[in-house]
C-alpha cells in the first residue's frame, strides 16, 4: 500500500476514534462535541490531502478497508480524479462546518443534543466520503444506505415537532425508493459484467445499446435523481433540509445532494457506454425544469432555510443543465464542446457547495440570534450582525451569478457549453435547444437575483420587524471565521478561475470521450471555452475597472464637499414603523402574479365585524403544491390502497407465514429443477 493510500484508512480511524471518544463523554456535551468535531475536521483535512494528491498527480489511489480472507469479500476504495474532485468539495465544506458547529451547537436547546448532532455530523461526512471513494457495488450501496440512515436520524434532531418527524419519514421513504432503483440498476449491469467491481461494472462496455441499457439508465437516473433533489423527485428536499439543525442543512444542501450528481456522472453519463442523444435531452430537460421551478418556488418562501433549500433544487438544475449539455454534445460527436459543459457542471458543484454552505451558515447565525426562521420577523440585522450581513451578501451575490464572484464563472462556462462552436452542431434539436436553454439559464439567474435581493434586504436591512430581531447579537468568532473563509473562497474563485479550471481539465479529461481543449485556461486569471476568439473571461481586469469606477465615485463625493446629514425616513406624514415597511410577501407579489400559472395562488380575504366597518381583515394567500398534490397525492393513495389489499396475506398468523416460506422454497426448488 502506497503512502497516500494509507491516508484514507488513517482518516477513517481518526474519525471513528474521535466518535468513540465523543460517545464516552456523551454525558458532557461540550467535551463530546469538541471531540467529535475536531476529529471530523482533522479527518477531513487528511482526506482532503489525499484528494489534492490525486488531482495533482492524476494517478488513481486504490486500497482496501476490509478483507475477509475466507469468502474473498472486501470493501475497497479507489480515488480517481472524479472522486477526488467531489472529495475536495466535501472536505472544504465539512471542515468549515465542523469549526462552525463547535460554537453553533452550543447555543440554546441544541446544547443538550450536541453530542448526537456532532457524532451524526462526523458519521455523515464519513459515509459521504465512502460513497465518493467506493470501488464496487457492495461498498457503494453499503455507504449509500448508511448515509441515508444517518442523514434521516439527523433530520429528526428536533423530533418533538410533528413536521420534523414527517420530513424525516418522507426522506427515508424516498431514499429507499431511490436505493431500490439503484440496487435494480446495479444488478442489471453487474449480472452482465459478472463482477461487482466498478472497474468492470461501469467500464461502459457491459451492456449493448438496447432496452436493457435504457432500463439501467432510467433506474440510475431515478435513483440518483431523488438524492440530487431533481424535479419532479424533489419533494423530500424542501421538507428535510430546513428541519435539520443548520450545520446539517449546510452539509446536506452543499454536499450530500451532490452524491446524486456524482452517481449520475459515474453511471448514467460515463458508466454505461456512449450516451445516446435522448439521455442528454432527458437530463437537460429535467435540469431546466429543476432550475426554473426551483427558483420560482424559492421566490415565494419566507422561511429562510426553506428558501435556501429550494435554491438547492435550482442549483442542482444548473449542474444538470451542464451535464445534459455535455452529454448531448458528446453524442453529437463534439468532444471539445462536451468538455465545456462537463467542466461547467463540475465547477458549479464546487461553487454551489461554497456559497450555499456559506448562506446556510449565515442563516444559522441569524436564526439562532433572532429565534425565528421567518424573514418577515427579521430586519435591521445588518447593524446588529454586520459580519454575518456582509458574508450573507457575498453568498447572495455569488448564488445570483453576479460577476467577480464564483457563481458567475460557472454560469459563464455553462453559457459557453451551450453556445461555443454552435453552428457546428449537426442535430437541429441541439441547435434550437441550446440557445433556448441558455435563455432559460438567464431567466433563472435573474430570478435568483430578485429572490436574494428580497432575502438579504428583508432579513438584514431597515427596521427590525420583531423583538427577536431587535435584540439580536453578532455570532461568536468561531462561527464567523468559517463564513469568512467560505466568502473569501467565493471571491477568490471568481477572480482567479484559471486555477480551478486547470484542475477541472484534468478531471474532465479523465472521463471517457471528453477531451478538454488546452486553450480553455489562458492564464490563472483568464479562461476561454476553447481555441479561437469565441469568448474569454478575465475577471481581474473587470475588477480593476470597477475599482476605478468606485474611486471615481469617491472622488466626486469628495470634490462635492460631501456634507452628510442623518434624518428620519419620510413616512408620508405618518410614523414610520416596522409595520409600514415593505414585506417579503409584497416583494415577491409581482412575480407571483406574473407566474401564477405555476403557483396557482389561492387568496382568501375575510372581514370580521360589520359589513362596511370591519374590525379586522384576515388575509391568507397560498400557492398550490402542484407536485405534492397531483403527482405524489395519487401515488401515495395508490400505495396505501395496495397496502390495504396486501394486508390479507399478512394477517399475523404464524402458520400462514410458515406456509408462505414452504411454498416459496418448493417453488424455487421446482424452478431450479425445471431449468437445470
Amino acid at each position, binding site marked *: 500500500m502506497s503512502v497516500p493510500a494509507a491516508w484514507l484508512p488513517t482518516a477513517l480511524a481518526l474519525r471513528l476514534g474521535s466518535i468513540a471518544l465523543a460517545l464516552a463523554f456523551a454525558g458532557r456535551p461540550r467535551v463530546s462535541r469538541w471531540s467529535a468535531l475536531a476529529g471530523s475536521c482533522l479527518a477531513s483535512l487528511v482526506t482532503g490531502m489525499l484528494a489534492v494528491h490525486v488531482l495533482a498527480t492524476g494517478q488513481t489511489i486504490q486500497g482496501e478497508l476490509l478483507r475477509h480472507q475466507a469468502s474473498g469479500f472486501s470493501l475497497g476504495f479507489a480515488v480517481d480524479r472524479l472522486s477526488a474532485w467531489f472529495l475536495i468539495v466535501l472536505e472544504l465544506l465539512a471542515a468549515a462546518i465542523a469549526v462552525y458547529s463547535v460554537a453553533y451547537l452550543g447555543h440554546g436547546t441544541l446544547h443538550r443534543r450536541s453530542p448526537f448532532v456532532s457524532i451524526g455530523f462526523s458519521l455523515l461526512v464519513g459515509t459521504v466520503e465512502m460513497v465518493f471513494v467506493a470501488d464496487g457495488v457492495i461498498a457503494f450501496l453499503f455507504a449509500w444506505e448508511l448515509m441515508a440512515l444517518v442523514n434521516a436520524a439527523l433530520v429528526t434532531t428536533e423530533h418533538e415537532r410533528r413536521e420534523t418527524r414527517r420530513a424525516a419519514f418522507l426522506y427515508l421513504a424516498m431514499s429507499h425508493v431511490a436505493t431500490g432503483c439503484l440496487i435494480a440498476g446495479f444488478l442489471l449491469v453487474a449480472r452482465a459484467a459478472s463482477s461487482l467491481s466498478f472497474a468492470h461494472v461501469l467500464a461502459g462496455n457491459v451492456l449493448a445499446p438496447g432496452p436493457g441499457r435504457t432500463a439501467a439508465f432510467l433506474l440510475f437516473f431515478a435513483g440518483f435523481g431523488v438524492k440530487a433533489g431533481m424535479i419532479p423527485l424533489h419533494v423530500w428536499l424542501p421538507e428535510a433540509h430546513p428541519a435539520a439543525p443548520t450545520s446539517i442543512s449546510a452539509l446536506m444542501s452543499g454536499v450530500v445532494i451532490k452524491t446524486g450528481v456524482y452517481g449520475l456522472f459515474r453511471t448514467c453519463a460515463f458508466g454505461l457506454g456512449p450516451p445516446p442523444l435522448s439521455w442528454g435531452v432527458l437530463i437537460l430537460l429535467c435540469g431546466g425544469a429543476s432550475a426554473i421551478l426551483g427558483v420560482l418556488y424559492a421566490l415565494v418562501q419566507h422561511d429562510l432555510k426553506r428558501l435556501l433549500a429550494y435554491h438547492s433544487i435550482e442549483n442542482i438544475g444548473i449542474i444538470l443543465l451542464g451535464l445534459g449539455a455535455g452529454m448531448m454534445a458528446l453524442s453529437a460527436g463534439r468532444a471539445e464542446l462536451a468538455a465545456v459543459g462537463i467542466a461547467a457542471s463540475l465547477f458549479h458543484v464546487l461553487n454551489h457547495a461554497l456559497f450555499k454552505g456559506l448562506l446556510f451558515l449565515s442563516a444559522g447565525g441569524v436564526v439562532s440570534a433572532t429565534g425565528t426562521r421567518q424573514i418577515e420577523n427579521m430586519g435591521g440585522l445588518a447593524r446588529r450582525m454586520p459580519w454575518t450581513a456582509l458574508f450573507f451578501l457575498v453568498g447572495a451575490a455569488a448564488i445570483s*451569478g453576479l*460577476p467577480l464572484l464564483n457563481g458567475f464563472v460557472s454560469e459563464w462556462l455553462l453559457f459557453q457549453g451551450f453556445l461555443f462552436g454552435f453552428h457546428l452542431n449537426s442535430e437541429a434539436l441541439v441547435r*434550437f435547444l441550446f440557445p433556448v436553454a441558455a435563455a432559460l439559464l438567464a431567466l433563472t439567474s*435573474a430570478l435568483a437575483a430578485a429572490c436574494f*435581493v428580497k432575502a438579504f434586504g428583508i432579513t438584514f436591512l431597515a427596521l427590525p420587524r420583531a423583538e427577536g430581531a431587535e435584540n439580536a447579537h453578532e455570532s461568536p468568532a468561531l462561527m464567523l471565521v468559517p463564513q469568512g473563509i467560505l466568502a473569501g473562497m467565493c471571491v477568490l474563485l471568481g477572480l482567479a478561475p484559471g486555477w480551478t479550471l486547470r484542475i477541472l481539465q484534468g478531471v474532465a479529461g479523465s472521463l471517457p470521450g471528453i477531451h478538454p481543449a488546452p486553450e480553455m485556461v489562458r492564464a490563472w486569471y483568464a479562461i476561454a471555452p476553447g481555441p479561437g476568439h*469565441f469568448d474569454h473571461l478575465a475577471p481581474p481586469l473587470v475588477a480593476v*475597472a470597477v475599482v476605478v469606477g468606485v474611486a471615481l465615485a469617491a472622488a466626486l463625493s469628495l470634490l462635492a464637499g460631501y456634507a452628510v446629514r442623518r434624518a428620519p*425616513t419620510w413616512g408620508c406624514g405618518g410614523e414610520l414603523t416596522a409595520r409600514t415597511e415593505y414585506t417579503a410577501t409584497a*416583494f415577491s407579489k409581482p412575480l407571483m402574479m406574473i407566474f401564477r400559472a405555476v403557483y396557482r395562488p389561492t387568496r382568501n380575504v375575510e372581514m370580521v365585524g360589520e359589513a362596511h366597518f370591519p374590525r379586522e381583515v384576515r388575509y391568507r394567500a397560498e400557492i398550490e403544491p402542484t407536485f405534492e398534490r397531483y403527482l405524489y397525492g395519487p401515488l401515495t393513495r395508490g400505495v396505501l390502497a395496495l397496502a390495504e389489499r396486501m394486508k390479507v396475506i399478512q394477517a399475523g398468523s404464524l402458520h400462514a407465514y410458515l406456509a408462505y416460506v414452504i411454498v416459496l422454497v418448493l417453488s424455487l426448488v421446482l424452478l431450479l429443477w425445471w431449468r437445470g
Partner: protein
Amino acid sequence: MKLLAFGILQAAAMLALAPLLRGAMKKMKAAFQSRQGPPLLQGYYDLAKLLRKETVRSDVSCWVFVAGPRVYFATAVAATALVPVALAGAPLEDAGGILMLVGLLALGRFALAAAALDTGSPFGGMGSSREMTVAALAEPALMLGLFTVALWGGSLDLGDLVRATVQRGLSAHPSDLLAAAALFIVLIAEAGRVPVDNPATHLELTMIHEAMVLEYSGVDLALIEWASALKELLFMTVLVNLFMPLGLAQVMHVPLVVVAVFLYLAKVFLLSVGVTVVEVTNAKLRLFRVPELMAASLGLGFLALAIRFL
C-alpha cells in the same frame, strides 16, 4: 498603456455624453407635445446642482445604502470599457464579452435594489421589487436576442462581433430585423422608458426606477442619475453597433476616428428619436401588462433564432 488611455478616454467621453442624450430626448419629447421643455443641457445643470447639495441619509440605513449608488455607478463605468463605441474594438474586450456586460449591469442593479430596501420606506421596497421583476423578465429576452446575433457572428465577444459585422456589411436578413426589434423592446425596459416605466413620474402607482431611488439625495442621487443615463447610452451603443456597424473605425487613424465618432453620434441620435417616438405615442402599461411586452420580445427572439438556425 495605450489600452488604458483608450479605456479612460472612452469612459470619460461616454460619461460626458450621457446627460446630453437624456437632455436631447427630453427636448424632443417636449417638441412632440408642443411644449418648450427644459434646456438641452439641463442634465448637466441637474448633476452640478445635486453634487453641490447636502446628502441626506435615513437614520435607519447602514453601509448598504451608501454602497448601492457607488457600485451602480462603478459597474456602469466599468461596462463602458467592454463596449465598442466609435472604434471597432473595446478597450477591455479581452476581459469579457456580452455575458460580462450583462452581468456587470446586473451587479449594479442588484446593489441598488438591495440598498433601496435599507431606509424602511415602503417606496424603496416597491421600487426594488418592481425593478427586479422587470429585469428578471427582460433578461431572457435580452440574452436570446443577443445570442441570435452573436451566434451568427460566431463570437460572444463584442469587439469580434462588431468587426465581423463591419466586414459583412449591413444586413436586412429577417432574423436580424426580428432580433433588432426584440432588443429594442428590451432597451425600452432597461432604460425605464414608457411604456414600461416613466422617468418623469413620481406617482406611486406607476413608479419603478424612481420609487427605488426616492430616498436618495445629493451626491448619492447624482451618481445614480448619471449611471442611469450612462446605462441607457450603453444599451443604445450596443444596439446601433450590432445592427448598424457601418462607419466604425477599424484602425487608429485620426480622420477615420473623427468620421466614426460623428457617424456614431448620428446613429445614437436616430435611435433616440425612435425611443422618443415610442414614448410619446404610447401610454404607460400597467405593471402586470409589462410581462406581455417582454413575452413579445422573447417571442421575436425565438423567431429570429428559428429563422437562422432551423
